């Protein structure tokens, strides 16, 4: 009689693992990456590789310093990849790599590594670069013009010169912009794949995009909301960054609030803010609100009548 294994129930676990989720996200990003390479040339691949390698190396180094085990769970790859996707296609490689390193070191590892960070590392990396090197971060090129001919993004054109870009170009991605935020369709394919696999919650992207559309419809009669939904990084942000588990609310109710809040901020930045685009900032700001949302927005507990959604901390 071999010794029996005794462990508490349940004795079966689902086959979903961190790796499975992370690598699915990477697979979901393939169409977007392909579009980026197609429109902006092979330099894009160098940037992506630089970001991923730098992210992995930084994570390895930081975990070693902290005396912890490095696990190839794919999260650092996602951070690097997502960061690369929201960089301009002709950014110097060292800058991209530095952004990834900063993101992993200061937005992830100092908080204790995977699962503990407050802010989305990729977006921290982007905003860090954006604030540090504004010129390089706003030098765009037209698709297929593989040498750097600077131009403005659709949102930039709209904000500065009130020129709208045709929807079909925005949907296909035949516009200037960050590597991964050009083709709305490619992003949508990946996003729908993840939703179908149930790896991300459809509520966040839906409430986020819908808020932007509806607010634009109400606030600006002269602007069509479809343009604002398709332009810029809204799709990339909504499907791949606002759905990041670690930095967004844990409850379904909270995720809807997160989406709405981020949508409001995007609209505020685009209409009255200093930047043409506000997706990265909106998600980062809502990341900061996430602990408060998590604390006060909880699902209704079985057997307890829902009285208030928000329980003021003074009550306790």
């Amino acid at each position, binding site marked *: 009689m071999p010794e029996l294994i005794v462990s508490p129930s349940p004795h079966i676990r689902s086959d979903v693992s961190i790796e499975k989720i992370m690598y699915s996200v990477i697979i979901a990003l393939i169409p977007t990456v392909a579009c980026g390479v197609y429109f902006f040339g092979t330099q894009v691949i160098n940037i992506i590789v630089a970001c991923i390698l730098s992210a992995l190396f930084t994570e390895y180094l930081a975990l070693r310093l902290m005396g912890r085990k490095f696990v190839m769970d794919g999260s650092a790859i996602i951070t690097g990849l997502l960061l690369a996707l929201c960089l301009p296609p002709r950014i110097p490689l060292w800058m991209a790599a530095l952004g990834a390193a900063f993101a992993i070191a200061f937005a992830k590892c100092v908080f204790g590594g995977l699962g503990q960070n407050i802010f989305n590392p990729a977006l921290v990396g982007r905003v860090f670069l954006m604030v540090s090197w*504004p*010129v390089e*971060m*706003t*030098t765009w090129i037209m698709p297929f013009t593989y040498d750097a001919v*600077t131009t403005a993004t659709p949102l930039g054109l709209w904000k*500065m*010169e009130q020129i709208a870009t045709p929807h079909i170009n925005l949907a296909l991605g035949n516009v200037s912009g960050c590597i991964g935020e050009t083709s709305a369709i490619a992003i949508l394919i990946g996003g729908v794949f993840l939703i179908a696999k149930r790896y991300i919650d459809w509520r966040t992207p839906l409430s986020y995009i819908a808020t932007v559309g509806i607010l634009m419809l109400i606030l600006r009669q002269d602007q069509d909301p479809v343009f604002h939904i398709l332009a810029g990084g809204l799709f990339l942000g909504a499907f791949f960054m606002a759905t990041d588990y670690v930095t967004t609310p844990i409850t379904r109710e909270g995720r809807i609030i997160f989406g709405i809040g981020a949508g409001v901020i995007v609209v505020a930045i685009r209409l009255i803010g*200093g930047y043409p685009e506000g997706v990265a900032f909106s998600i980062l700001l809502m990341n900061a609100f996430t602990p408060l949302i998590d604390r006060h927005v909880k699902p209704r507990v079985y057997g307890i009548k829902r009285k208030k959604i928000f329980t003021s901390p003074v009550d306790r």
Partner: protein
Amino acid sequence: MESVKRIVRISIPLILICIVSGATLTVSNDMTKGRIEEVEERKINGSLSIVFPGASFNKMDDYYSAMINGEEMGYAFVAEGSGYSGTIKTMVGMYQNGTISRIHVISQLETPGLGTQIAEPDFTNQFSGKRIEDIRLRRDGGLIDSITGATISSRAITEIVRTRAEEVMNETR
């Protein structure tokens, strides 16, 4: 009676300290007053002489008239307005015919390294010799090249300068 005594005992040192402090500060103020006024004046004069080198100035209502060899050359005035973040304050020199002589940014709070370039000669020199109606960004139909990545700051300063210049032109006409 006791409480009155106590109040007196407590308040007298405080009052004394206040008096001494007031006296010291008045003395210091008197000592520095002249210099501070001089400093403030120099700031204005400094920028005045940048926009019209070698000229002397007469203060008018809200602008200065610039005289060279006793002859009125043009006007110098401060143009103020909100930029990308915070107020941009510029000294503008303008010839009587409505051509800009020179501008000088007195203070601004733009994004460091980006918007702050509006204060640098590479940018401000563009204004020299331009007519009022041309003080617009190229994309707005003017002759000023905006700074890459800092369109808002560039546009803000051109708007500020042009609006004020137009005002002064109307006043002096």
